[in-house]
């Protein structure tokens, strides 16, 4: 028995030894080509740096040197004695039909055989052939700037400077001279890198109704090897893009992860972005009577024409630690300037009036100051359910003088018609505003009543409207993980009112003669009827939703033609 085991073990050892000694077949370890992207143009194949090319250089790395046969894409090549690192050339006409070039990705496969014809190994790589006239490598040809802003009949750079010229930068092979035609101007380059600067007036003669600018480029190397005709795009924006616009669901709808995660209804906004194509409120002053104005907020700098403290007769409006006034001011008129987000009337001016105690005397003074300083509309995000005769008469006085006054109607989810309430927002001389939310429904907290006129976005308990907060870490902490500390999401009718004030400013900028009643009529006529279980009567009024939610674009269109 012991002998049998020993013999079997010896047999196994012999087998193992035999396996170790058996030679493994040679293998291709790697296959590389010198250009994996080629362009073709007018029957000429060029590299990405414009050099004409008729064959590829390939490098093959083998597991051992030897005498081999190899096939490239099935075509037999000569039997060679091949080193471990082998280089060869591959004529392009063996890969492509050179007279009938087309966009294609070509696979190059090398099959390795022994000199006796025994198959060993294969390896593949790819080369892509692209039409040159559809490809503009940005490293070779660049337009600067690529984006500009048209505002107030001026063309500005995105950092707010007058744009007077555009520059085309190019990069050619150092040996290749070329003629480059941009629009109607042709320059000659002796090769290498260069720039062509042309006045913007060559491209834009009529600034009104200007859309994106397509600039034709013709490019011919003098050898004839390279040449194409194409257009470069100068994108013309209607305003400077603000980084947080995409979170401002009350102004417009963007399809993005933020809006998806909060189930924002695409029609929850009030079409402000659309209205801004017509006007941004230039020439109109919005007075905001509130408290806690940070007049040096990055979105209010340069916007504020006057500040006034109606309590102590000073210009100090940064009263208390609240950001309430700052938020209301920003929501009504923050500029489109590449910072934060745009307010409802981004080119309107702001008059900030603090009345910290909201005493009867301070309010009379505040409203009178707003009129003295030429406010076209006054935004008020406060109320008492107990309006004074004094304030009612002062508001009547301003109404008679043509000043539009907007009041938020409060956040207690109550019917103002009940319970002996006499709220400022119910006065017939003001626009009373309730709140809609991101689902395009009545906000659950919004007050309502027969004297309220319409709704505007004020958010919900889940998601507020985005506005200006105190600068830095103080203020609200409702940044929702998407905006910095200078901004916050805030909910309440307090933020619906400045939106209506801003839309009113837009309307007054296209039709300054509108009376407060005409503004109300237009806003009501352009309202959208919202609400799943709403019951709008024959006059278009619903008890809780008033005449519906305002629409800025429609209101501005109606205002422009209103006589």
């Amino acid at each position: 028995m012991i002998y049998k085991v020993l013999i079997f073990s010896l047999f196994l050892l012999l087998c193992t030894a035999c396996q170790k000694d058996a030679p493994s077949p040679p293998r291709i370890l790697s296959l590389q080509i010198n250009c994996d992207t080629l362009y073709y143009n007018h029957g000429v194949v060029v590299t990405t740096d414009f050099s004409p090319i008729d064959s590829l250089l390939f490098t093959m790395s083998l597991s051992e040197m030897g005498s081999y046969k190899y096939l490239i894409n099935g075509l037999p090549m000569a039997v060679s004695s091949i080193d471990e690192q082998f280089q060869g050339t591959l004529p392009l006409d063996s890969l492509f039909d050179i007279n009938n070039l087309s966009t294609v990705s070509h696979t190059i496969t090398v099959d390795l055989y022994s000199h006796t014809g025994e198959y060993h190994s294969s390896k593949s790589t790819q080369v892509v052939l692209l039409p040159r006239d559809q490809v503009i490598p940005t490293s070779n040809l660049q337009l600067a700037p690529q984006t500009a802003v048209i505002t107030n009949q001026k063309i500005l750079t995105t950092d707010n400077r007058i744009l007077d010229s555009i520059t085309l930068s190019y990069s050619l092979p150092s040996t290749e001279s070329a003629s480059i035609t941009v629009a109607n101007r042709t320059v000659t380059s002796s090769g290498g890198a260069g720039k062509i600067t042309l006045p913007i007036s060559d491209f834009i003669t009529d600034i009104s109704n200007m859309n994106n600018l397509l600039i034709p480029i013709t490019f011919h190397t003098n050898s004839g090897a390279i040449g194409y005709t194409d257009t470069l795009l100068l994108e013309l924006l209607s305003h400077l893009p603000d980084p947080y616009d995409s979170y401002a669901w009350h102004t417009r709808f963007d399809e993005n992860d933020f809006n998806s995660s909060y189930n924002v209804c695409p029609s929850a906004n009030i079409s402000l972005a659309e209205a801004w194509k017509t006007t941004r409120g230039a020439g109109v002053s919005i007075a905001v009577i509130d408290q806690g104005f940070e007049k040096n907020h990055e979105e209010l700098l340069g916007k504020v024409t006057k500040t006034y403290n109606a309590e102590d007769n000073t210009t100090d409006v940064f009263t208390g630690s609240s950001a309430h006034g700052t938020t209301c001011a920003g929501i009504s008129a923050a500029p489109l300037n590449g910072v934060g987000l745009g307010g409802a009337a981004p080119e309107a001016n702001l008059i900030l009036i603090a009345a910290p105690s909201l005493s009867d005397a301070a309010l009379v003074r505040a409203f009178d100051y707003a009129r003295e300083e030429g406010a076209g509309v006054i935004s008020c995000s406060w109320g008492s359910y107990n309006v004074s005769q004094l304030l009612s008469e002062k508001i009547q006085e301003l109404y008679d003088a043509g000043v539009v006054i907007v009041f938020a109607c409060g956040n207690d989810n109550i019917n103002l018609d009940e319970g002996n309430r006499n709220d400022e927002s119910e006065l017939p001389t003001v626009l009373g505003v309730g709140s809609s939310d991101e689902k395009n429904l009545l906000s659950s907290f919004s007050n309502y009543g027969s004297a309220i006129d319409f709704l505007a976005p004020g958010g919900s308990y889940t998601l507020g409207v985005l506005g200006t907060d105190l600068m830095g870490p103080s203020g609200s902490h409702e940044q929702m993980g998407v905006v910095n500390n200078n901004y916050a999401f805030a909910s309440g009718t307090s933020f619906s009112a400045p939106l209506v004030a801003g839309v009113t400013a837009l309307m007054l900028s296209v039709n300054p003669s509108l009376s407060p009643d005409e503004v109300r009529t237009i806003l009501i006529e352009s309202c959208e009827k919202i609400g799943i279980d709403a019951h709008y009567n024959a006059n278009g009024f619903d008890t809780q939703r008033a005449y519906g939610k305002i629409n800025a674009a429609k209101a501005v269109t109606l205002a422009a033609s209103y006589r």
Partner: protein
Amino acid sequence: MKNILLLLTLLLSTQAEEYFYEFGEKVFLKESSNRNSSSENGFRYFETKHGYKMTTTGEVIVKLQSFDHLSYFLKTYPIDSYRKLDQQTFLLKLQSGHNVFTMANKIHRDSMSIYAQPNFIREQRGNR
């Protein structure tokens, strides 16, 4: 019995009722029992019959028939200082020791005024 009367007097004095004129009517206010009436700045705390809270500041607001009548008011009433609110409306700071409701109602009834009331801070409904 004397003690009961004394207690009632004390209770009434801390629950003083005042009135002023607004929208052509007398508006009665009950002094708030849970606020310190003699707090700083002469502020006193009241509530309307509907429960709205109002605070007086020791000042009276008067709307005059004409700006020319201002000197008459300054001579006639115990006014310490004044501030113009608009062309016809003035905030009058009373000399100490005078009840703002008594003086506001006197001025209100004066034929040279259109209207007068204490300067109130009305409790605001809350912001979200």
